[in-house]
């Protein structure tokens, strides 16, 4: 009986140590990430979007993406239902409940990579195939590094990265903000093509103040709206919509470089309500608390080697 009690005490002590090592998971969080110095992004204004899908076409042209037919009917154009390994950018229409004269019963939303400040995909990727450019903050993909584990898909809170399920040599596919055009001094194809300025390219700081300017507008009055590039010259006059007083992407999960404005609640546009701290920061914080830069595991290993060696010697 004596032996058993000692066993139990040891068990309890060991479990206690584990709990202590774990600390309080709720507090283990690392600091939020700042905007990269020359961060560029997109401000998408749902109230300006007319759903013409020219941005989808321009995206496929600029990125060499194949057409996608999802309906069984004969159609002349491609008709993706959602983002996929063939579609990097999509305009979706959501039905919205409400008085017809204010929201006309529906609203558009444009979906593609948000280029998060603290991207879950980048943190998740074991082989650094997804990286965030330290200068402009664009999250790009390198197929030469990717092992195809799809942890980025599990980790992305917006379900953006897609996988080529039907290829023996599959790749991850996602919007890279037309990084290949940016290096040549261009802007993202979707913004360049947008006829109303609903997709507006520019430095994130400027886009944030532009979004704030719009939210302060008097609904129904005419105002100037920049088109394509906030640093460009083209301007159009539009009636201001009745904006929801929230910039989606400004704070969600630590913020992103793609920002959304809308006249209807974001939840009804399929954008999840998210906390301000990223899950990455939480996971990193817990990993750090447990491992303290591999110091703890090495100490434990040393202890184990000492104990086991002693026992083995005693046996002989």
């Amino acid at each position, binding site marked *: 009986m004596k032996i058993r009690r000692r066993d139990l005490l040891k068990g*309890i002590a060991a479990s206690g140590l584990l709990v202590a090592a774990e600390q309080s998971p709720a507090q283990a969080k690392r600091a939020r990430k700042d905007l990269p110095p020359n961060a560029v992004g997109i401000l998408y204004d749902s109230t300006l979007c007319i759903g013409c899908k020219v941005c989808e076409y321009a995206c496929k042209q600029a990125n060499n993406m194949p057409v996608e037919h999802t309906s069984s009917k004969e159609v002349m154009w491609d008709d993706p239902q959602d983002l996929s390994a063939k579609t990097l950018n999509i305009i979706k229409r959501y039905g919205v409940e409400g008085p017809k004269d204010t929201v006309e019963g529906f609203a558009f939303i444009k979906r593609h990579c948000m280029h998060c400040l603290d991207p879950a995909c980048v943190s*998740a990727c074991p082989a*650094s195939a997804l990286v965030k450019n330290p200068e402009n903050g664009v999250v790009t993909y390198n197929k030469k590094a990717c092992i195809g*584990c799809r942890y980025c898909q*599990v980790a992305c809170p917006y379900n953006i990265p897609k996988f080529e399920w039907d290829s023996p040599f599959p*790749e991850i596919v996602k919007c890279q903000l037309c990084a290949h055009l940016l290096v040549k001094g261009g802007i993202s194809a979707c913004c360049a093509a947008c006829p109303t300025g609903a997709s507006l390219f520019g430095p994130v700081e400027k886009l944030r103040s532009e979004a704030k300017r719009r939210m302060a507008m008097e609904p129904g009055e005419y105002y100037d709206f920049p088109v394509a590039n906030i640093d460009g010259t083209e301007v159009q006059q539009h009636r201001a919509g009745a904006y929801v007083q929230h910039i989606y992407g400004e704070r969600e999960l630590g913020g992103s470089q793609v920002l959304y404005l809308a006249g209807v609640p974001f939840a009804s546009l399929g954008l999840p309500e*998210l906390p301000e701290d990223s899950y990455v920061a939480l996971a990193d914080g817990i990993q750090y608390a447990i491992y303290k830069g591999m110091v703890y595991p090495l100490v*434990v290993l040393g202890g184990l080697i000492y104990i086991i060696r002693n026992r083995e010697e005693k046996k002989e």
Partner: protein
Amino acid sequence: MQERQALGGKVLTVPFKVCAAIVLIGLFFLGKRFIFGIGSVTNMNDGYPWGIWIAYDVVVGTALACAGYSIALIVYVFNKGEYSPLVRPALMTSMFGYTLAGISVIFDIGRYWQAYNIFLPWLSNLHSVMFEVALCIGTYILVLWMEFAPTLLEKFKAARLQARLNRIIFVFIALGILLPTMHQSSLGTMMLMAGHKLSPLWWSGFLPLLFLITAVVIGYAAVIFESLIASVAFKRPLELHLLSKISALMPWLLGLYLVIRIEDVNLRGYLPLAFEGGLLGNLFLLENLLLLAALLILAYPNNRQNPRLLFIASCAMLLGGSMYRFNTYIVGFDPGTGWRYFPSVPELFITFGIIAAEVMAYLWFVKTLPVLPKFTKA
């Protein structure tokens, strides 16, 4: 030193042949996967990028293979040499379990031909939990083979090599305890990143701790299960005195787990979800009731002497612990855009093939190698 012996006897028995047939079917679908892509054999999709190949083969499979870890922990750290007859069979199941989990990862990852990229220093992402898991599991597979090597050397009578290995084996034994502690908890940390996509009944800051405890619980249960089955199947005496002793630890571990598990959900305010009657709530209850049942059975010393009750308790722990892990990776996961996942038949057969291969290797090894303790018929 405990004497061990090979069981001997015919290897090509009926169960062995049935397993071989399942392996062949699995290999057929595997061929299809490598020629036409993962989508041609599985139901995985962009909403559910991980299916049973990860959730069962790796996440549950390596927990089942924690027998070696759990026994090593008690034998070497808590200095209970009396349990050493359980070490070799436990190490062997661990070796098979982990090796096959490692192999099944190659089937699962899309760009397997450049899997080594993870370990190229200029590509390794030290912040990635997946990197840590891959590195730990990869190293642990090597460690398990080194720990098992004395058995092979004994068989081939390589005495000099055996003596040399014996001088440094303590390093491998120490690593064999450290590495599973790290990667088994990290398998829980992995799903922290799923955030709002994982049901609050499973998403928790305690994921790493709960995964570590389930690894130990499932590991012990696997030892009890394996020992009882082997005794009955090969008509050997039960190792009851040892099994009942290691079982005495379980009620405490299960109690600790259940307190953390329930209290964590409760403090975050999601406990009512469990009683709403939905699939997730019911699975949450079932998962914890199974572990509670094992706790109640093993809490009474008399029950621990009863092979039937020991067997039931070990099954409850294997099921409850595995369900917790499976639910965390698949059932409780909902990407939220209408995606659905249920494994396809070919996908299942590849997993069955892996299990069958493991059973075949077990049968072959115990019959030809000195794994099980020696006994003479009275």
